[in-house]
């Protein structure tokens, strides 16, 4: 099962889960994903080699997509 997670004040919130067989859960995840991006969040999909990739469309084959806020120089 794949997860869409937002880093927030609660630690993190699981916004959606989906499976490759269930189109309804995929649609719900895509909708939640777009809503968060519209609010200024950035999405990061963890790749198999440990690196991460910024994504603007929900990668349905990813295990975990994390939504984070932008960073800035301190």
């Amino acid at each position, binding site marked *: 099962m794949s997860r869409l*997670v937002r*880093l*927030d*004040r*609660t*630690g*993190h919130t699981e916004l959606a889960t989906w499976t490759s067989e269930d189109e309804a859960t995929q649609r719900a995840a895509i909708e939640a994903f777009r809503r968060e991006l519209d609010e200024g969040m*950035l999405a*990061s999909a*963890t790749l198999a080699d*440990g*690196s*991460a*990739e*910024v994504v603007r469309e929900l990668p349905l084959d990813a295990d975990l997509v*994390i939504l*984070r*806020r*932008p*960073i*800035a*120089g*301190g």
Partner: protein
Amino acid sequence: MSEAAVMPWRRRASEKSLAKEGRIWTLWSAGVIVTFSLPAALLIWVEPLAFPVAVIFVGHGIAVLHLQASRGARGVKPIGDPETGPERTALGLLGDLVGHETRELLQETGLALQRGRLGAWLVGQEGAILVRPGGHRVHCFCVRVAEGSDLPQADRVAHLLLALREDEEGFATVANRNFSGARWRLRLELAKRVRPALRQV
């Protein structure tokens, strides 16, 4: 990285730019030593009895060098023990992100280790230390979540870690520099709890 893309006035960090910055910091440190040591030596040559004043001169120079490294050490800010539910939740996710190998180091020192092309990064809540290949030189960066005052400590680290994994050079471009120098100089200024992290990389 979108954060770096909105800063076109900043030259993108690279292997070359970091090496150049390192040389500038070394020149600056050498300049501080010369500025304070030369008058001290002249003073002793002119009047040996002025030795205590010369010592004060040299001490001032050493203090400036300590202050520089201290600024770098303070910027990184490790995470503390989780005291609230959100802190524990955030730490759990961060633990999953860093993986088994570096989880112990995170627990021990409060910093997350991430290896990259530019070197090994130790990521804290509001900054990161980059240990360059070879391990002799460190760069300290000040970088934080833009609007993250409400976030648990471990979540702030997770934000920076993800950004670093997405684009290492972009991360170094967005971050502000606050120190570069020999690893031992930074180690002297780090809190005791954090020092083992520098040994691990």
